[in-house]
């Protein structure tokens, strides 16, 4: 049986400036709505979660990824396929524990912060890109994987790189990916 031809559907691209500026306007609006950084971070995570649960379907449809056999494979796919597809960057992946359930995505370039020089005054705990954590968490949950996703380092807070930590919480489901009902 021959492999079906890999169709590349014509998918819509977006103006990068528009995307980045809109994200910035969103964060600025949330800063107006919520006084505490933790609340803004929480809301960004929540919104990201909502996006991730839907985005994963688009991702699986467009990327034709195979079934994964390890958390390490999954993290590689997030970095090399998903990030590339949606943000045009490929973070590097490191594994943080011997049991291979904790990983980091290291972003030396982050398009979302292109127009941001520094965090606004009085917003030192703001996780500007927290939407990304929610997206990853929501997407993983839709394929039956629970994970904690947080920022471990942030260039906007003075760190050299931006680092997203993914900690897988449950055993990998042995069955194939299936839609959450």
């Amino acid at each position, binding site marked *: 049986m021959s492999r079906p031809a890999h169709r590349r559907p014509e*998918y*819509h*691209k*977006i*103006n*990068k*400036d*528009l*995307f980045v*500026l*809109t*994200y*910035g*306007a*969103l*964060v*600025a*609006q949330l*800063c*107006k*709505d919520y006084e505490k950084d933790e609340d803004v971070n929480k809301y960004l995570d929540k*919104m990201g979660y*909502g*996006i991730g649960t*839907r*985005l994963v379907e*688009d991702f699986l449809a*467009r990327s034709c990824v195979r079934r994964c056999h390890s958390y390490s494979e999954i993290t590689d796919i997030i970095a090399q396929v998903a990030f*590339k*597809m*949606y*943000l*045009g960057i490929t973070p590097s992946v490191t594994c943080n524990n011997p049991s291979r359930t904790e990983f980091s995505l290291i972003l030396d370039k982050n*398009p979302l912060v*292109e*127009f*941001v*020089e*520094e965090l*606004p005054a009085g917003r030192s705990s703001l996780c500007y890109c927290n939407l990304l954590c929610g997206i990853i968490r929501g997407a993983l949950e839709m394929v039956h994987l629970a994970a904690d996703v947080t920022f471990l380092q942030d260039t906007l807070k003075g760190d050299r790189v931006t680092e997203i930590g993914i900690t897988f919480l449950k055993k990998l489901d042995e069955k194939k990916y299936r839609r959450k009902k």
Partner: protein
Amino acid sequence: MPLHTKKPRSPTSVSPGGSPGAILLGQTCLHQGPGQKTSLSVLEGMGFRVGQALGERLPQETLAFREELDVLKFLCKDLWVAVFQKQMDSLRTNHQGTYVLQDNSFPLLIRMASGPQYLEEAPKFLAFTCGLLRGTLSTLGIKSLVTASVASLPTCKFQVVIQKT
């Protein structure tokens, strides 16, 4: 609350595959604020801010317009192509400061429905874009009021009324 911005660089580039993310981003924006009216003005305000910033990143020569009509044509062609990868389908004016810009297949509505379905929800998806137009006009030195109307998805009309100072 201003976010510090870097100096604008040269022409914008297109990032791959950002569209579903952006549309979903727009959808989640809807969960803001109590009541439709406040949400719409919040969205319009965000669009205004983005429109201003986009306007600032335009190549300098486009800013030397002869007439008001040239600015509107610029919105219909250059801005719309930069943002939505298509031109506005028609531009009409009464030559007295009111312009109607019509898009027959507005990208933010096209995935929703075809026809009269979801007419009630459509304004939420247009508020941001109205602000975007108003913001870009503002950067080009023009004060305006921008509203949108939809009779049948995905066709929509943006009405731009120039405010004389």
